[in-house]
C-alpha cells in the first residue's frame, strides 16, 4: 500500500502546474470566447440542418440568395478557428483533472459528469468537422447525423457548465485584475488545490494573461485565414488549408460529385435523355434536351455553397422551374421533388418548397457562364436555386415530381 494519501498526491500533482495561467480569470475569458464560438457554430449548424431536412412546421426561405453561403462559411471557419481556443482552455483547466476527492457532493459529481460530454463532445465536433472538410472518414457512422446530434449533446453540457460558472465568470471579469505578480502558482495552505484558491492569491500577471490571450486569438486568426479562402476568394492565396480554390475546376468552378462517381456518364450523354415532369395533380410531360432549349431561357448569378464551407458564384442560364411546372398544368404553389439520373446515393433527389419553386431564379440550368454545362456540373440539366446548400442543387436532373 502506498503511504501517500490520494489527497496529498493530488495536491502535489496540482503544484507541478507552474504557470500562473492555470487560473480562473484566464479560464473565464477563454470560456466566454468558447461560448460565443460554439453558439455561432450551433446556430449556423442548425440552420444548415433546417436547409437540408426541414421539419413540417418550418419553411426554409428562398432568399436572400447568398445567405447559406455566409452561414455555412461562418460555421466552418469559426469551427476551425475555435481549435486553438479549445486547446488553450483545456490546457488552462488541466490541473482540475486531478482533484481529490473527485467529487465533494452529489451536485459536484453531476457538474463534473457533465464535463465528459462537454469536453469529449467539443473535441469530437472540431475533429470530425475538420476531418470531413478534408474528406477523411476514419469512422463508419454517417458524419452529418453524428455531428448534428453530438452538437446537441455538447451544447446541453455547455449550458450546464455555463450555468455553473457564470457567477464566477461575472465576478472575475468585473473585478479589476491584480497588478503585482504572486510568482508561480503556489497555493497558500497545504490542503488547497491551486485552481480552487481565490483568484487573488494565485494567478498570472495581467501582462502575461493578456499576452497569452492575444497569442490564442492570433492562433485562431491564423487558422481562420488558413481555411477561409475557399469561400472568401481574396484570401485564396493565404488559405493554405482550404479544401478548394476559387476558379479551379471544370469551367472554372469546383466540383463536389463527379459524373463518374455518380455513375451517370452514359445516361447523361444518351440521346434518349428526357426530362419527365409528373405528379398526382400534373399532366405528365416529357421534354428532350432540344425541347428544354426551346423554352424561354433565364439567367441568374448564384453561388454553389457547399456544406463543407466553400462556395463559388457562377452565371447560370436555363429554364425556370416554375415555367416547367406550368407546362404540366400546375401553378407554382406546390412543392417539387427534383430527381437525378443517379441510380443511387443519399443526394440523388432534393426538395423545393413552394417558395423556392415560385422564385424566378430557381432554374433548371443548361449553361454556365455562357457554355453548355460540363458533365461534372450536371449536363444536360441541373437544378440551381437561391440560398440552397450545394448538395440540394441536384445535378443530371431527370424528373420533377410535383407534390
Amino acid at each position, binding site marked *: 500500500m502506498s503511504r501517500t494519501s490520494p489527497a496529498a498526491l493530488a495536491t502535489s500533482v496540482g503544484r507541478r502546474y507552474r504557470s500562473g495561467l492555470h487560473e480562473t480569470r484566464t479560464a473565464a475569458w477563454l470560456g466566454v470566447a468558447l461560448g460565443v464560438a460554439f453558439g455561432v457554430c450551433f446556430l449556423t449548424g442548425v440552420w444548415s440542418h433546417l436547409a437540408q431536412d426541414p421539419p413540417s412546421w418550418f419553411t426554409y426561405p428562398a432568399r436572400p440568395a447568398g445567405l447559406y453561403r455566409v452561414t455555412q462559411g461562418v460555421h466552418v471557419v469559426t469551427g476551425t478557428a475555435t481549435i486553438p481556443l479549445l486547446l488553450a482552455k483545456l490546457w488552462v483547466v488541466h490541473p482540475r483533472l486531478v482533484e481529490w476527492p473527485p467529487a465533494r457532493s452529489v451536485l459536484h459529481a453531476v457538474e463534473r459528469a457533465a464535463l465528459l460530454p462537454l469536453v469529449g463532445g467539443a473535441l469530437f465536433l472540431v475533429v470530425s468537422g475538420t476531418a470531413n472538410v478534408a474528406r477523411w472518414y476514419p*469512422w*463508419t457512422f454517417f458524419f452529418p447525423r453524428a455531428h448534428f446530434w453530438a452538437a446537441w449533446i455538447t451544447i*446541453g453540457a455547455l449550458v450546464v457548465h455555463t450555468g455553473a460558472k457564470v457567477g464566477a465568470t461575472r465576478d472575475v471579469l468585473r473585478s479589476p485584475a491584480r497588478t503585482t505578480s504572486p510568482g508561480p502558482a503556489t497555493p497558500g495552505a497545504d490542503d488547497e488545490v491551486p485552481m480552487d484558491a481565490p483568484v487573488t492569491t494565485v494567478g498570472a500577471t495581467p501582462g502575461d494573461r493578456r499576452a497569452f490571450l492575444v497569442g490564442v486569438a492570433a*492562433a485562431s486568426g491564423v487558422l481562420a485565414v488558413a481555411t477561409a479562402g475557399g469561400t472568401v476568394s481574396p484570401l485564396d492565396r493565404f488559405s493554405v488549408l482550404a*479544401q478548394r480554390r476559387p476558379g479551379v475546376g*471544370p469551367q472554372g468552378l469546383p*466540383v463536389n460529385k463527379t459524373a463518374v462517381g455518380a455513375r451517370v456518364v452514359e445516361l447523361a450523354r444518351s440521346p434518349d435523355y428526357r426530362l419527365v415532369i409528373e405528379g398526382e395533380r400534373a399532366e405528365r410531360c416529357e421534354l428532350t434536351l432540344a425541347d428544354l432549349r426551346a423554352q424561354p431561357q433565364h439567367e441568374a448569378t448564384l453561388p454553389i455553397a457547399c456544406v463543407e464551407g466553400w462556395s463559388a458564384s457562377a452565371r447560370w442560364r436555363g429554364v425556370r422551374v416554375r415555367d416547367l411546372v406550368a407546362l404540366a398544368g400546375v401553378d407554382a404553389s406546390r412543392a417539387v421533388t427534383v430527381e437525378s439520373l443517379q441510380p443511387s446515393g443519399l443526394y440523388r433527389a432534393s426538395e423545393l418548397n413552394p417558395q423556392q419553386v415560385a422564385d424566378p431564379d430557381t432554374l433548371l440550368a443548361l449553361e454556365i457562364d455562357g457554355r453548355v454545362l460540363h458533365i461534372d456540373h450536371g449536363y444536360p440539366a441541373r437544378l440551381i436555386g437561391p440560398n440552397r446548400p450545394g448538395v440540394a442543387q441536384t445535378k443530371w436532373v431527370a424528373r420533377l415530381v410535383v407534390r
Partner: protein
Amino acid sequence: MTASGLPATTSRRGLAWGLALGLPVLGYGLRGVAIDAARTHPAELARWVVGAAVVNDLVLIPAAIAVGWTARRLVPSRAWAAVRGGLLATGALALVAWPFVRGYGRDPANPSLLPRNYGAGLVAAVIVVWTVVGSVLVVAEIRARGRRRGQCR
C-alpha cells in the same frame, strides 16, 4: 472547498439553472443518437467522444505541457509569451493540416477537390507564424532599449 460541497467557482443556483435548461438539450441529443442509430452508430460515436477527451487529457495536453516546459527553459523570459503563441499556432496548424497533407480524401476523378500542395502550405504558414513572432520580439526589444536609454540620459 466551500460549505456547499461545490468548488469556489461553481454557483449552486447557476448550476441548478444550467441543469434545468441544459439537461433537456443534452437529452434531446442522446435521444437523437438513439433514434438515428442506423446512421449514428452509437457505440462507435461514444468511443469517439470519450476517446477524444481521454486522448486530449492524457496525451495532447501533457505533450503540450512537456513542450512548454522545455521551450520555457530554452527561451529568454522576455521572449516567452510570443514564443508560446507561436507554438500554439504551429501546433494547431499542424493538427488541422494533418489529413490534408496526408491527402486521405483525394479523388483522382476530381482534381478540384484538395487541389493544393498542403505540405508546402503548412511549411509556408509556419514560416509566416515564426516571422511574425520574430518581428514582435525585435520590435519589443527595440522599444525596451529605447526606454532604458531614455531613463539613463
